[in-house]
């Protein structure tokens, strides 16, 4: 499926930027505040002069008033490291869901690149599958689109192994967005905790579709797990179907509660909702975009 967006939608995206609830140090100058003091334009603090400091940063007004040499410190404004981790396991293979996930990833990439954030796109299933080199600037967006268009879903989900693999490599701490259905037999909580423990500001985008929430059949049915190929014969009565629906809702609520408890942003994206509404409304309401 092509991931090109309409021009007017792209313009709308340019007005948005990814919200990070913490400040992270970047590599290049940009317009994100960082915890570093440096050559920004916004005054941050004073410190005593020490030999070797640049005389141009001495606050002469303070010297005249206090008779002490103080240096003026400014906030360093740099780019924000954004890690976009996309679930490409077989459970995401359902076209509606996978398309939504890819379009969301594309939109977030565009927003990040437009604001000169340093964006890294990763995919995972049983482990990290693909990782693009970090980049910034809108000029990279077409490469991202091509990459997303070529992606295919397959393999089982193991978020824990994937996050461990993510953590095993040296990276700058930054904003990490996981787009997934979080249908992980090992549980999504361990993986998310790992990312949180590393110090990342983590956002979970929970992609769902009708096929996830509804059994889709009544009577005797042989269900096949898309990831493992496991078969299970079931006699789906309306009562059982209802129980399944409740179980799914409980699963989603449990994930949302977990994210709330650990300070992880959580946004649910249903494939049945219009895409623009998810990006422009749901993400903003979830304080993920501003």
């Amino acid at each position: 499926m092509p991931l090109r967006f309409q021009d007017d939608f792209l313009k709308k995206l340019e007005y948005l930027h990814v919200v990070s609830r913490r400040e992270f140090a970047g590599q290049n100058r940009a317009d994100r505040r960082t915890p570093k003091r440096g050559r920004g334009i916004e005054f941050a603090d004073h410190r005593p002069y020490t030999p070797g400091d640049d005389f141009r940063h001495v606050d002469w007004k303070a010297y005249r008033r206090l008779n002490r040499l103080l240096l003026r410190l400014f906030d360093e404004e740099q780019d924000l490291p954004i890690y976009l981790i996309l679930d490409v396991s077989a459970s995401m293979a359902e076209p509606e869901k996978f398309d939504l996930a890819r379009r969301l990833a594309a939109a977030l990439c565009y927003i990040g690149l437009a604001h000169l954030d340093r964006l890294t796109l990763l995919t995972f299933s049983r482990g990290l599958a693909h990782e693009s080199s970090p980049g910034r600037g809108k000029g990279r967006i077409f490469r991202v689109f091509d990459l997303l268009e070529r992606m295919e879903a397959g393999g089982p989900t193991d978020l824990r192994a994937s996050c461990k693999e993510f953590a095993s490599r040296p990276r700058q701490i930054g904003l990490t967005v996981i787009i997934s259905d979080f249908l992980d037999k090992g549980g999504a909580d361990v993986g998310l905790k790992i990312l949180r423990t590393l110090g990342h500001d983590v956002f979970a985008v929970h992609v769902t579709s009708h096929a996830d929430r509804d059994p889709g059949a009544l009577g005797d049915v042989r269900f096949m797990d898309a990831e493992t190929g496991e078969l299970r014969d079931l006699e789906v009565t309306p009562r059982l179907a209802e129980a399944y629906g409740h179980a799914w809702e409980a699963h989603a609520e449990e994930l949302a509660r977990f994210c709330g408890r650990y300070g992880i942003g959580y946004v649910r994206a249903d494939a049945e909702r219009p895409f623009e509404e998810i990006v422009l409304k749901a993400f903003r309401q979830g304080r993920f975009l501003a």
Partner: protein
Amino acid sequence: MTFGAMAAWQAWLLVLGAAAAAGGLFLLKVRPPRVVVPSLLLWTRVLDESRERTLWERIRRAVSFAITVALAIALAIALARPARTLRSPAGGGPAVARGRVLIVLDSAWSMLARTRSGETRWERAVAEARRVAAAASGSDVAVATTVDGVIEGPTSDLTSIDAALDRLEPGGGTGSGWPRLSGAEVHFLTDGALARALDPSVIVHSVYESAANAGITAFAVRPGLDGTAAGEAYLEVANFGPSQQVRVTVARGGTAVLERHADLGPGEALREVLSLARGGAQDLRVRIDAPHDALAADNEAFGWIQDARALTVAVVGAQPGWLGPIFSATPGVRVNFARPADYHAGDEDVVIFDRWAPSTSPAKPALYIAPPAAAWLGQDSDRIESRPQWTAMPAHPLLAGVDPLTFSIDRAHVYAPPQLTPLARSAAGTPLIWIGDMTGRPRTVVLAFGPGDSNLASAPAFPVLIGDALDWLARPPAVDVHRTGRASFDAAITRVTGPRGAAVPLLYLSGQRVAVLRAPGLYGEEAGDARASFAVNITDPDVSNLARTTISASHPAVAVSAGMSPRAWWVYLVFLAFGIALLEWWTWLRRITV
């Protein structure tokens, strides 16, 4: 238990096999449709939760399995046609000895009388017959009726006995005589309406139950005696119940000719004589309606007015006037005279050719008087016998009442028609009267002498001969049949049709044509090209009087109680299977909806 369709071991094997097959099919899972889901994670979670299962959910599969097996067993047993082996008189079933059993059902019309329980005596008798047959299971059983004789068996196959009992129906009281089956124990199921001399060994099962009834006990039509009317009808309606008003309707064709409401006391009868005018329809129908009337079969009677329609005769000849006075004195005959050049075959019943003959034999019954030479007559040219003398007259309807001595014949033509038969000959052997009576061809009479050759015009026997000839040519022999049951017919009758137009089988028995007339109504008969109708009625006081029976204490009878007709087991088993299938269907629905 015995089985009608197969040996017991085969039946039980079938039952076991069916149960095993049904159970196996139930347990053999049909591959369900495959649905790919993103993950079984949530299904596993749902199923692993300790869901509270209802009692129905816990037993439903077992119930469904049991129902499936029961369905297979019921159908398998039904297929094997089971029968009970009841042999306990004390238990209510009829006592039947081992050996052959002959079940005779009384075919009298009174057996159609309704009892207080709503069933007819006949239905009660059939039910008892089934019980007797079931009690004699394993023995050879035969079923007979008093009108048809033995109609099924002897056989040990109760299925065929059941089937025979299903197709039986009353057909009048008398028939071929008492059915016999050597060495058999005879069970006679009767209401005793008609008296019968029974062997003391016959076990009588009485289905008699007194009932009030009004019925037509007599209805007959006879020709008019004064020549002005076509005939007259005699009607008798009797009341064998409490005082009641009986409505009597007599219709001729579609027109009512009598409608009366008669108040008849117990045992009283209404008697009417109806004059039937000439012209109009020939069929008569009587119907009565009464409030206390247990037997419907005797509420209707039929009559046929033979002389209602005038016989049409065409006389063809150059000088046929000499025949005029003869026909003018004959009632019921309409004559048209025509010259040979003007004659065209019309709708006349009979043609008389006076000293003239067409080149081919006509398609109508015809009387030829001294016809001239014709190829089909095979006349030996110019051969004439002078002053022939009659010899002994054979017995034939054509010559009934004809005195040949009144004929004075000067000369007779000598014919040799290949398709005709000489009826009367001269002393020298010359045929004087020829007749043709071949199946599928119209009847023919040829007189070898004419008015110019004899005193035919003035002979006293000639009007009788003409009358006989017209009757023989156009009217088949009268049938002396008034009742249902077995009837004998004249040898000339070639076809008998029933009230609905269907042919009644004609049999040759002991040199007679015999047919069984099963239902009252108007029947038709054909002889050559002549057709006639006759009425068959029940009209029997012994049948209509449902308050009497000939079963007496001298011949004790087993009283048959009212009750539903016991059907063969397999019928109930099929119903049971249907019910079980419904139950299984409901179970399936419950599976889907609960």
